[in-house]
């Protein structure tokens, strides 16, 4: 189960002063979330593991360059987001705006997800319905429900206001409901 604990200021201060134990604690709190973040967006376990590993190494690397983090959650998701974008840019055949669409789109991706949720037909169906939504709708649903972030956190990553995100989520759920009904 994903931990919902947030990094306290005292722990953040230790992380900023390059305390390995504090960083290890942050890893425990966020590694699962980051893992899921990549898993849902890449549908590849191998890639998920590689990118999860890189995310934390990059975070450490950033810290040791005289930099301080103000908000660990948005910082770590920002790195994850950048790595994901970078990865898809590297694979030139996949365009940036296909990032989210790729999730259950490929045969391989579907197989993995199917395998992952084969005992839960409703989840499988839900994912395939989500796939019919546009990129923005999928993104907000992923952040809110899969990554389990609150609006403040999503706001820090996307640069959009919590109010706008709330409305966006509401509309995305509404559109998902219409897809279900049809």
């Amino acid at each position, binding site marked *: 189960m994903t931990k919902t604990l947030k990094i306290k200021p005292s722990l953040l201060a230790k992380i900023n002063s390059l305390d390995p134990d504090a960083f290890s604690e942050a890893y425990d709190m966020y590694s699962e979330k980051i893992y*899921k973040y990549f898993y849902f967006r890449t549908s590849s376990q191998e890639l998920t*593991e590689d990118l999860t590993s890189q995310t934390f*190494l990059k975070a*450490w690397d950033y810290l040791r360059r*005289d930099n301080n983090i103000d908000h660990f959650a948005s910082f770590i998701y920002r790195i994850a987001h950048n790595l994901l974008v970078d990865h898809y840019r590297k694979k030139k055949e996949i365009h940036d705006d296909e990032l989210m669409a790729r999730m259950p789109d490929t045969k391989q991706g579907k197989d993995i997800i199917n395998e992952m949720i084969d005992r839960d037909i409703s989840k499988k169906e*839900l994912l395939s319905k989500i796939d019919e939504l546009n990129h923005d709708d999928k993104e907000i649903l992923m952040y809110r429900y899969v990554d389990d972030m609150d609006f403040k956190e999503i706001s820090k990553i996307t640069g959009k206001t919590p109010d706008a995100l709330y409305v966006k989520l509401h509309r995305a*759920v509404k559109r998902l409901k219409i897809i279900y009904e049809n």
Partner: protein
Amino acid sequence: MKTNKLEKELKSLKNLPVDHNFLASNKEQLLKTIYNDPLVKVKKEISKTKHASFGMQIFSLKAVPAFLIIIALLLSTGTAYASQDSLPNDTLYPVKLLTERVEQVFTFDKVKKAEVAFKHAQKRIDELKRTKPELLKDPKILNRALENYEDKINLGIKYIKRMNDVETTLVPINRYDRELTDSRKSIKELSEKTNYQEVNLYRDAASDIKDTQSEFVKAILDKAKDTSSLLPALEEIANDRIQVWENEVKELPAKTIIIEPNKINLKEDAEEKIIIFKERIINEVETILPILEKELNTWSNNVDKIPTHAYTESIKPTKTNTFTSDEVIIKSDPVIETGNVEDIDKPRQKANSADITPEQQAFKDEVLDLIKKGDTSGALDLINSNPGMGDEKPSELNNIQF
């Protein structure tokens, strides 16, 4: 489906399983890397000492890198401190280079190591700028700084080559590239300061920096194969090159023609190519940049062959030469060919005698072509029908019986 039920389903997505074995082994690897980080190791040592002796608050090594502590110790000796303002001709200069080596050795991170190397290289150029012009004529002084400059740049490139994808994205590539461009410019300016006494030395130095810059770009292009995040930086480098090229073109007279080997009008040649490169940079920078580098270097080499006095001459035409105020025609540069600075005036003599103009060259080629085809009477007719060109009759015609 009701909205509440849908939201419940959505919330259940976060409970999808993860590979906890992976997360555990990844943590182990991560912590191994972190605990072996030299910065953490040194910090721990200092932390122990401080607690044991004075119980003072631990200071952050992030704020005080190890090399600064050692340099501070070094600089606490008067000699090392005094050396910091020294110039290549000063006796304390080697001490200054030593403190820099210490800084380089005690910087552990590849990105910072490259940064330190480029910083030190820049210092060499700044020192030469501060050195008295008369001292700049001394090859020993000049070489002392320039050799160190090149060593530092090569060191910086070496660290860049060793970086992983993430590290490379942290390198201020464009800044380094611009510094290299500026260094070449500075060397050219220094060359003018010395009144051409050491023209070859400076020319070689500028050429070496050009080669080093190409090596730098090559290293970045290699890295770009693995990480597309470098593409914007490469585009910026390509645009910088175009800008440099455009500026150089502006400085040339309208008709700057290299007669040998192919009668190239350098100005027109560059203008045409610049348009093509500009169009193609955006989508094909990885392919275009190496070609652009090569073209610009070849073009610059041709421009470098033009003696500077030729420009002056083109502005003040005499009755005996064929130049107008906006053209300069260059056959060859004996200084390049012989390496003898005393030959600097020879192109002027050749230019004054105006051996041959492009029109005359075309005439000569046409006549020779007819001769080669065995059409000697046609060649003779051509000569007779162009009396003005006859003055520059090709020497090859002397042996032909018409």
